């Protein structure tokens, strides 16, 4: 316990946890912005190559994290056309907060899209049809029917995305050892000073995860299904 309190006075620990939370939150926000229309498209439209696209989205869940980091560095490198665009925009991936957020978006977005897609699919199409026949355009229908019925899944998706991002280590350690997010700090403490010194930081990070976890449970509680007779 004394260890825990002392750790809180450690500036590096506080800074790394803050950075973890901020970058993860940013990734969740970006997921919301880019992922929502995409999830809607996947839930409502049929098109050629849809199965393929869904597979590609799920891919980051299965790729080893250091490989993810290496892939991102490869793409953002000077030899790659995307790297050139990124460079021209004045952005730096390697060893920067931008880089961390990019990594976290990459690993977190699939969780967001899968969750929100399921949320949209749970809104019966008939509701949207009814709304359309009553005069609402596609956009009005989205905001007056689909969104109010699916927003919960967006919150859940953002929490999942944040949680996944907070716990990311393998990809970040490749792309940006510094600035140091909490998992990297824990790793450094472990390798430099051993198990004992890494544990207090680990406990604090777990507490952050637990808060997210409780939020998740609160929002994803299903209504008790009606008794079937």
């Amino acid at each position: 316990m004394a260890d825990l309190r002392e750790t809180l006075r450690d500036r590096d620990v506080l800074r790394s946890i803050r950075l973890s939370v901020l970058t993860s939150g940013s990734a969740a926000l970006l997921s919301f912005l880019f992922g929502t229309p995409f999830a809607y498209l996947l839930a409502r439209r049929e098109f050629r190559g849809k199965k393929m696209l869904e597979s590609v989205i799920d891919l980051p869940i299965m790729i080893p994290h250091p490989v993810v980091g290496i892939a991102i560095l490869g793409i953002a490198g000077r030899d790659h056309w995307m790297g050139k665009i990124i460079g021209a925009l004045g952005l730096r991936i390697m060893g920067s907060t931008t880089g961390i957020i990019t990594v976290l978006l990459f690993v977190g977005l699939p969780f967001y899209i899968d969750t929100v897609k399921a949320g949209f699919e749970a809104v019966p199409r008939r509701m949207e049809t009814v709304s359309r026949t009553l005069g609402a355009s596609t956009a009005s229908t989205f905001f007056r029917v689909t969104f109010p019925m699916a927003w919960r899944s967006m919150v859940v998706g953002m929490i999942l995305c944040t949680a996944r991002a907070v716990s990311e280590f393998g990809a970040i350690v490749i792309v940006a050892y510094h600035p140091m997010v909490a998992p990297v700090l824990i790793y450094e403490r472990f390798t430099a000073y051993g198990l004992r010194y890494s544990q207090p930081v680990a406990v604090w990070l777990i507490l952050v995860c637990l808060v997210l976890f409780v939020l998740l449970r609160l929002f994803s509680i299903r209504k008790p299904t009606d008794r079937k007779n």
Partner: protein
Amino acid sequence: MISIHNLHVMLPGFSLRAVDLHVGRGEFFVLLGPTGAGKSLILESVLGNVHVAIGQIRVNGKEVTRMPPERRGIGIVYQDQALFPHLTVARNIAYGIRYLDGDREDAYRRMDALTDRLGLEDLLHRSVEHLSGGEKQRVALARALVVRPDVLLLDEPLTALDPNFRDEIRDLLKSIHEETGITVMMVTHDFTEAHYLAHRVAVIRDGVIEQIGSPEDVFRRPRTAFVAEFVGIRNVFEARLVGKEAVVEDVCFLLGRPARDGERHVAIRSEDLRVLGTATRPAGDCENVFEAVATKVVHKGFVSDLFLSVHGLPMRATLTTRECIDLDIREDARLALSVDPAHVHTF
């Protein structure tokens, strides 16, 4: 008014082929058919929810085939009501008002009148979740009607209801239709509903329309064996038809009019068979009085089913249970049976 001309819709494993339908202004039109026949698909085409490969759809003269649903002037009530669960009853009903041109005040007055008419005054501020099936259906109806669509579509509106609500909503649909004079196209698989509500019905099977006509017409004069059995005609036989006679095995039925070329079936409704009594009358060759043996008698409340063997031909008659008891009809009883030649239908 709805006109559907040469409609083709292709789905994986199913297609609508060459559907032609015209629903007149103010008409109550029913699409009838077994599950999977494609009737709901026609409805979805009118709504604008499926890709129409070939064909045109017009609503009130306006071509809508490629229009988005919100510009077609159509209202829809689904079997499962599809009420917006996050809105109160009042907000569900008022949903479409903001998209109306013209006087909103007027629309809200109309909404008040509608909720009164449909007995929803006391429910307005309730959530839609805990309403009964009948209440939900009335809310869905109010929601569709408040924007005064040109045409109202009903997708099996009675099927999911408990039997006691079913009669209530059926009567309500009939009277609302009479009061508003709105054009209605309804889908159902239940012939009795169609018979009660429709001006005209279309019987659909496997994506193709088999017959269109008044319920009475389809009921009395089906044009195919499928339609005949679908509308509950129990006595449908292949027959040799010559002049005013139809011969089925050893039985000869006299017809009300000479048979037409190409006709090969007779159909007789079980309730058109009259039991003259248990005394046997010698059956002349072709005077539509037959000798029959009752093989089974089944009392079903007000009516009874009588299974007969007419010179070996299995037939079925429907009587009131009262008649059945008055005539003391039991199994193995010998009966005299007659049928009005006008009720021997051929096709």
